[in-house]
């Protein structure tokens, strides 16, 4: 008995395979994204968690000028501290013969005779340092990969002004540097910046720090809270030039991964919800059509004694077949895409092993969510049909009630052709269905906007921000703060067109209960290099008082222009001042605070001091400039704009572009699915009417016009709504995915809208053509028999 019903199910499905497939595809897209994002979240979270646990990632970090090792015991005695690891951390420059520009890096010490208590390393290749050995170094993987360094290769470092050539013992990873970037910059440049480890003794003797440390990390005892420990630590380290301890929330590598996870959370919810709603609309449309067609069949089944429940179940099965197909597509797509994106993550997140791990829970959830969407889609209509008394259902549905359409009642009737009237009245008679279709189409149009908005944002960052906002070619940092007289020396380097001084200082910005630790930058008020730009892309002239911060930072702190912000300087004389917030800068990476150079120097009270400079260089003298620069020992790091841009293009931009492409493909699929589905349904619903028109002498073209008119009217209403929705989506999603580490500007170009309109138009035309082809196969004779 049931098996015969299932046979009917199978045949119904085969007859409606186009529509069923369209629904399954749209559902599959939503589920793919959900499964992909959830699995990536899981992969990142669990991998990071295990990594942190196994390699003992610290919880509080601090840099200082210099403190004797015996202080470590006192720190360990602070209530709430579990384990402490002190060491040395220094900035160095490197001499890589293959590289034109100077490379720089961070060298960390490793205890001479035992593995570190915290922040242990993972050995990727080669071997560990020999205890007590000299002339050996461990190299972080990102740098090693970017420069094709292998164990056994040698590497020349400028340690405290002395060139020292070291042998690479091993390639390593550290939980502190899952994301390797120069402090104070959110963007990585693995080619010119690396992390290295040397034995404590060797490093300490090179820097005259033997018996002392300048960097410390600790973990908290279970249940201990971070704030009092940080307070006590800062107090203890104040006499030793402590730069202010911070927790993981200020740890650059940690927040970079956290931000990625946050973005994934947004994507795991936002897009799938939209896609699955569209799928629900579509399921509803397909099912209500099927039910209208099968009115009599339902009556006969009921006459034979099938219960309402059995009948509802039968049609639910129909929907569930689509759900299962969609879920299969979704799981498959989710895994494929997830694996693809994990390989991208490996480009800039360095884990011992980052494997794609399918979130089975998400899979079940996805199945449940889409089943729910489908059930919502079918339930009302199926119940209505099942409730029908058999005798009534047996009669063909009475001719539907129509009335002149609103637009005709406005007196436009005369100019309307009959085909137009048929189309308009049909739409008006089933306003709910028309609204569903419009909603589906509008959503499909809307989601086309988002991915291209990402693309245009990236493009804006790559072009505008880098060329118009950042006009320098190269930025450098000095080993130590120096008198600003050094800029005369810089100006004499070959090819220098302009040089601008920079002063940066470690500070903690406080507003209310919130705070962030960062390097504040003092820049010339009318600087032409690192220009501070407002939301309207106009340069902000740094005033002689007050500070300008990234608008993201203002968000984070909850501060607004005019507020007084507390500025705790974490170095030098460690003054604490309040300064008014005078402007918000639109920048796309990291969080920053800017002040006029002189104002900052006045505030710091250390005279006219600079810590770095930026240059614009004559392209012809580029190599000469770099060669000379490589020879200046006071330069600790170099940031070449082109390298940063290339790196950004290859990592961040590339990953966003992959996601953008995926979403774009999905959005196009949805647009096609919705339009095609809608056209097929209107065709099916009116086969009889259209066949009649053919019989009484209408040509195919004229009959097609009726259908097409309807589609065009729907599209004309839906597309503008869709463009608005899309703008909303883009704004909301960008707001959500914009983090403290990387942000995209909201760029909405006419081309983006044009693309959405074009895609929907093409989808509509192709679907219309497919449906018109079906129209040619319309069974004229069959349609005139008694209604099915």
């Amino acid at each position, binding site marked *: 008995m049931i098996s015969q019903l299932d046979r009917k199910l199978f045949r119904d499905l085969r007859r409606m395979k186009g529509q069923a497939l369209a629904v399954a595809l749209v559902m599959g897209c939503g589920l793919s994204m959900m499964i992909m994002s959830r699995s990536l979240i899981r992969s990142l979270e669990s991998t990071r968690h295990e990594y942190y646990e196994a390699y003992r990632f610290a919880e509080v970090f601090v840099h200082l000028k210099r403190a004797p090792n015996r202080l470590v015991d006192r720190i360990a005695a602070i209530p709430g501290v579990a384990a402490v690891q002190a060491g040395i951390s220094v900035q160095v420059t490197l001499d890589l013969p293959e590289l034109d520009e100077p490379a720089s890096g961070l060298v960390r010490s490793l205890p001479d005779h035992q593995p570190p208590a915290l922040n242990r390393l993972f050995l990727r290749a080669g071997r560990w340092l020999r205890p007590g050995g000299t002339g050996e170094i461990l190299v972080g993987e990102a740098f090693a990969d970017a420069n094709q360094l292998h164990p056994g290769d040698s590497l020349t470092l400028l340690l405290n002004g002395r060139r020292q050539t070291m042998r690479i013992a091993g390639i390593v990873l550290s939980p502190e540097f899952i994301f390797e970037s120069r402090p104070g910059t959110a963007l990585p440049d693995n080619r010119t910046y690396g992390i290295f480890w040397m034995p404590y003794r060797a490093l300490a003797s090179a820097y005259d720090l033997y018996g002392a440390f300048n960097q410390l990390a600790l973990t908290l005892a279970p249940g201990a809270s971070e704030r009092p420990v940080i307070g006590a630590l800062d107090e203890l380290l104040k006499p030793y030039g402590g730069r202010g301890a911070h927790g993981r929330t200020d740890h650059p590598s940690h927040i970079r991964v956290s931000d990625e996870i946050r973005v994934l959370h947004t994507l795991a919810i936002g897009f799938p919800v939209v896609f699955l709603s569209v799928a629900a609309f579509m399921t509803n449309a397909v099912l209500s059509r099927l039910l209208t067609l099968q009115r009599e069949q339902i009556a006969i089944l009921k006459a034979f004694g099938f219960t309402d429940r059995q009948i509802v179940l039968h049609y639910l099965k129909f929907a569930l077949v689509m759900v299962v197909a969609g879920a299969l597509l979704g799981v498959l797509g989710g895994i494929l895409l997830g694996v693809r994106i994990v390989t991208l993550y490996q480009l800039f997140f360095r884990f011992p092993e980052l494997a794609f791990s399918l979130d089975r829970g998400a899979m079940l959830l996805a199945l449940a969510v889409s089943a729910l969407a489908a059930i919502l889609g079918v339930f009302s209509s199926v119940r209505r049909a099942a409730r029908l008394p058999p005798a009534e259902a047996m009669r063909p549905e009475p001719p539907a009630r129509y009335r002149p359409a609103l637009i005709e009642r406005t007196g436009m009737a005369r100019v309307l052709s009959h085909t137009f009237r*048929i189309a308009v009245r049909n739409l008006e008679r089933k306003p709910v269905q028309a609204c569903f279709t419009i909603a589906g189409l509008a959503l499909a149009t809307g989601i086309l906007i988002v991915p291209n908005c990402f693309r245009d944002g990236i493009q804006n960052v790559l072009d505008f921000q880098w060329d118009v906002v950042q006009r320098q070619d190269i930025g450098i940092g000095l080993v130590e703060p120096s008198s600003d007289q050094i800029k005369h020396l810089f100006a004499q380097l070959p090819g220098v067109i302009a040089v601008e001084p920079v002063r940066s200082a470690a500070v903690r910005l406080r507003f209310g209960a919130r705070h962030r630790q960062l390097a504040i930058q003092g820049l010339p008020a009318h600087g032409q290099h690192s220009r501070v730009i407002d939301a309207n892309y106009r340069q902000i002239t740094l005033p002689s008082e007050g500070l300008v911060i990234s608008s993201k930072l203002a968000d984070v702190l909850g501060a607004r222009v005019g507020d007084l912000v507390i500025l705790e300087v974490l170095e030098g004389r460690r003054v604490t001042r309040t300064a008014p917030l005078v402007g918000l800068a639109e920048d796309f990476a990291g969080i920053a605070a800017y002040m006029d150079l002189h104002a900052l120097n006045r505030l710091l009270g250390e005279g006219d001091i600079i810590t770095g400079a930026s240059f614009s260089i004559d392209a012809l003298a580029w190599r000469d400039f770099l060669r000379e620069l490589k020879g200046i020992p006071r330069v600790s790091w170099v940031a070449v704009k082109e390298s940063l841009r290339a790196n950004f293009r290859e990592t961040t931009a590339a990953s966003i572009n992959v996601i953008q492409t995926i979403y774009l493909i999905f959005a196009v699929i949805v647009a096609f699915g919705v339009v095609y589905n809608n056209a097929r349904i209107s065709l099916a619903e009116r086969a009889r009417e259209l066949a009649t028109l053919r019989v009484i002498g209408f040509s*195919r073209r004229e009959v097609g016009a009726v259908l097409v008119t309807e589609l065009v009217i729907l599209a004309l209403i839906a597309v503008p709504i869709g463009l608005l929705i899309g703008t909303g989506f883009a704004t909301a999603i960008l707001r959500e995915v914009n983090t403290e580490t990387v942000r995209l500007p909201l760029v909405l170009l006419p081309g983006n809208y044009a693309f959405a309109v074009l895609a929907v138009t093409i989808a509509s035309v192709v679907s219309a053509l497919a449906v018109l082809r079906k129209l040619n196969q319309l069974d004229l*004779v069959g349609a005139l028999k008694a209604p099915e």
Partner: protein
Amino acid sequence: MAFPPGIPDRLRIFRVRQLTKVYGEGLAQVHALAGVDLDLYAGELVVLLGPSGSGKTTLLNNLGGLDVPTAGELSYRHLDLTRADEAALTQYRRERVGFVFQFYNLIPSLTARENVGLITEIARDPMPPELALEMVHLSPRLDHFPAQLSGGEQQRVAIARAIAKRPEVLLCDEPTGALDVRTGIVVLEAIERVNRELGTLTVIITHNAVMAEMADRVIHFSDGRVHDIHENARRAPAQSLNW
């Protein structure tokens, strides 16, 4: 205006010779038409009688250009319907043929007037929709939608729609099949009037033998063939029929 039988030069509209229509293949083959020979003349009213499944609808569909035969000859005046392509058939239906079906097949979203107007928009020399509806006595119902009309009224709209283009041929497939006697007779009167006043060659399919009395000729159909043709000496008015 019926042509008296036996007049040799009456105008032949359809010429049907050994017309065959086969549906399906192999064992499932059905010979819906198994060699039909028939001529139909201008202005006559023909009733096509026969048991269900005997091929009446198939013949009518072939005459009306809705379907093409498998073999045999079928021509309308000089137009060979077996060779006509899709465009020619559409043209033919549009200008020459009016159809009336058992289930009316009106466009539910158009009023009576508009359903008829639909045709007058595309035909070459149509009558105004109001006039066509007047012929079937539906003037008071011009602006009603199908859902607001009774079955008989809907069928009369269908007739008006069929004749508004002043077709040469009116093909009616069981036009009273879904109606009760009284309404059926009103519909038949409408058809009769069209035939008489416009001189349209009219073919009515029915399996109701009583309706044979209103015809000039009665064609008995069985097993896909013309079994017998009977000419009535005198047509009975539709009004006088009863079943």
